[in-house]
């Protein structure tokens, strides 16, 4: 599996507000056997997640998702195998009970003993995958790298993102968006750049989870496009009614249907192409019954195409039941690209320079520009650069 398969999801006409274009995705039938719920966390949202291998992941985590594959809600399976409420769930009652938020999250994806549901932190799973890219640092002890880099790797590794409500116009666009019947997802464009894709298995889940998009994280690129971008035009319908074109109401209706089909094709081929046609590196995080939870990384190619990281739940045929993506900004792509190339050449700077078709000094400059300058041993690098210049 290398691609995202959105079979079963149909595109509906986009809704535009300012610079934000939202394309709804509709399922004819919900995915059977999987439901998604939201688990709210109290407090400011700052959370530290214990990843297990003595590393921690710290971020703004306003909520988690719970994937439930018991098949509850399917009707027939109501008696057997339905999960009861998890420990700590508040049943009914008025208002939230007063309590001190306990904020120690264990693992990004966790299944409690004996339950057929998995709690995971949306987007953070994917972001952790990106942050952990060659996290171990240089694999060979070249003297260009500092002792800290050799000992601790890239730790601590940090990336900045904007919350949805900080992206100008996004909150308003999501608020006034009119959900389609059967809608199970959306593609979010800011200044006509694909900012995020979000797909869930069931329309009822989507209705509940739609507002969570404003609490999600969006890259620097999305924020800048929203901030500086102008209004995007609506693709308004246009019916060709030249000579002999339309004679009856049936013709008119056929022309209107044709308009809708044309939009769906144009969208998939033009606007979402980079998301759907890139081949990703998938990493399985969890297997739950017929469903698999993956996170994926793009190829980090510098060919000007958009690159997304994200997470995906697929059914046994590989079709997406859940999808959430994060658009990387140019700088993040460059950083990923550089790390990949360095790792390919076992972190040897000169070999990497050759590989990239450039000079030693340029590779050093790129590493510094990517914010990884602290990993280099400044003395060795300065000496080697001088030698190169003299030689």
């Amino acid at each position, binding site marked *: 599996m290398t691609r995202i398969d959105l079979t079963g999801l149909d595109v*509906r*006409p*986009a*809704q*535009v507000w300012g610079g934000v274009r939202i394309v*709804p995705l509709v399922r004819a039938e919900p995915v059977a056997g999987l439901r998604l719920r939201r688990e709210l966390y109290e407090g400011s949202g700052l959370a530290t997640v214990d990843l297990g291998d003595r590393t921690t992941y710290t971020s703004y985590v306003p909520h988690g998702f719970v994937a439930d594959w018991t098949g509850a809600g399917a009707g027939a399976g109501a008696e057997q195998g339905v999960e009861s409420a998890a420990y700590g769930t508040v049943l009914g009652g008025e208002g939230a009970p007063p309590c001190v938020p306990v904020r120690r999250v264990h693992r990004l994806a966790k299944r409690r003993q004996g339950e057929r549901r998995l709690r995971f932190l949306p987007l953070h799973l994917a972001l952790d995958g990106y942050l952990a890219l060659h996290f171990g640092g240089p694999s060979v002890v070249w003297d260009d790298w500092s002792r800290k880099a050799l000992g601790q790797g890239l730790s601590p590794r940090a990336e900045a993102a904007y919350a949805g409500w900080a992206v100008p116009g996004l909150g308003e666009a999501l608020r*006034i968006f*009119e*959900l*389609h*019947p059967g809608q199970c997802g959306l593609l979010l464009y800011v200044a006509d750049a694909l900012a995020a894709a979000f797909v869930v298995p069931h329309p009822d889940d989507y209705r509940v989870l739609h507002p969570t998009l404003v609490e999600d994280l969006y890259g620097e690129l999305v924020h800048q496009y929203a901030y500086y971008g102008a209004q995007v035009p*609506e*693709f*308004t*319908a*246009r*019916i060709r*009614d030249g000579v002999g*074109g*339309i*004679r*009856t*109401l049936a013709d*008119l*209706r056929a*022309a*209107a249907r044709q*308009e*809708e089909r044309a*939009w769906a094709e144009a969208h998939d081929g033009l606007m979402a192409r980079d998301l759907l046609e890139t081949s990703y590196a998938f990493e399985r995080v969890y297997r739950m019954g017929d469903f698999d939870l993956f996170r994926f990384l793009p190829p980090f190619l510098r060919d000007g195409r958009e690159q997304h990281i994200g997470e995906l739940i697929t059914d046994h045929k590989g079709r997406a039941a859940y999808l959430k993506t994060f658009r990387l900004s140019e700088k993040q792509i460059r950083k990923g690209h550089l790390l990949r190339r360095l790792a390919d050449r076992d972190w040897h700077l000169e070999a990497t320079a050759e590989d990239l078709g450039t000079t030693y000094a340029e590779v050093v400059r790129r590493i510094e520009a990517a914010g990884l300058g602290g990993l280099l041993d400044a003395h060795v690098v300065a000496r080697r650069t001088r030698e190169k210049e003299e030689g």
Partner: protein
Amino acid sequence: MSELVAAEDVLLFVNAAVTATGQREFRSSAAAQHFSLRFVHEYVRVNYRPVYAAALALDINHHNAALIVEQLLRTPHEAGGSEAKRAEGRLIAARLALLPPQRVYRLFRSLRAAGVNNRRTRAIVRAWLAARPDPALDAVKYRPGLKAALRHVHGRPADDETGDFLFAPGRRVRYGNATLDAYRRAHYEQGALYELPFTVAEGFAARHKVPRAVFLERIAPRMTRLEQLRTARAADLTVMPLTRLALYVLSLPFAERVERRAELTHALRAAARRAAGPYAGSWGRVAAVLDDSFSSSGSAVKRRRPLAVALGCHFLLEALAAPGAYTPLWTSGGSDPLLVRPYGPTPLGLRILDALETGPDRVVIVSDGWDNAPPGLAGEVLRVWRTRLDAERRTSVVHLNPVYDAEGFDVRRLAPSVPTAGIRDAEDLAALVEIAQFAEGRTGFAELGAYLDRRVELFLKEAGG
């Protein structure tokens, strides 16, 4: 050309004055609405002053009526000769008589804040106060408003007792007037509460710690119609105005709507028949496209207003159409008007196609004009229909829009070939359809002026008689 522009400006203003209330809408904030409305008022006041005053004779909403009166009184020097001023004065007096008193007192207070105290203003305020049916009730119910108004125009209270009640409350031990005395006694006697108007008694009830249920039960006969509707204890729904009733129905939970289906439907039908009046059954075959998309949920301050207007129009059109010749088409595809809810996108284009297929004499579209599934299809369908399929205009299409678009300074249109009119209360539908005929961009200013003059004459005659 300039004539057409002028006619367009005037229609734009009428649409704004009918729909806009300066409150938050689904897609724009209160500030944006307010700002936009202020501009439109100023623009029309400066450029078309006689028309601006004449708008008072149309079915514009209370907010705009008060705003127009205030603007007219603030700028007497722009009015032109004394003849024009007198005409304005007549219109203002006639409109103030129709406005709810709390609106008028608020208007007087804003005039006071603005420092407007010319002779005309004083005369108008005094005349309005003199015409109030029960000065004692006003003194109790609108005490600060009445006080401010009297102070501002140096007016005399209706009688000595009222004067003392307002300006020297300690002077008398008891009042001869029952209402004034009830107010005095209500301070220490619970029984006196129930002789006071509802809004005043509410405060006393809280002070005497009367349980809310008991209080509502006993005060019910003193409530106004809308207060009864608001506290959900209306005895007779059939006397309520149509749009208010529709709002009330939409505020009920689904289960209750199903339970009281017969009663609610009957009340809505009765209100619609009353609103239709002599036109009932005279519109031939009618198809209505009614918007119940998510955007018809309005805003926190105008909860479900667009949907209520659509629901009201549904029943009114049913009454106006020939018996059995009415087809309602909700955008969501639903068929039960009582169970509508604001949900889903707005596929207006496809619904209009469905409407046209029934071969109607009239198509009425009630929508906020944000056609989004797919966008712009409604406009295209209507254009092609007009140019290719129905060039002889056998079918008349009209679009009624309950939402003022702050950015466009007008209600949102679907297509240039389709007349669009703003609508606030479903009851005004027939009159609005008449105005909308001017909005096709083919009538000049002269015709529109003649129409306005006719309306003004009618309005003043009604007010006088």
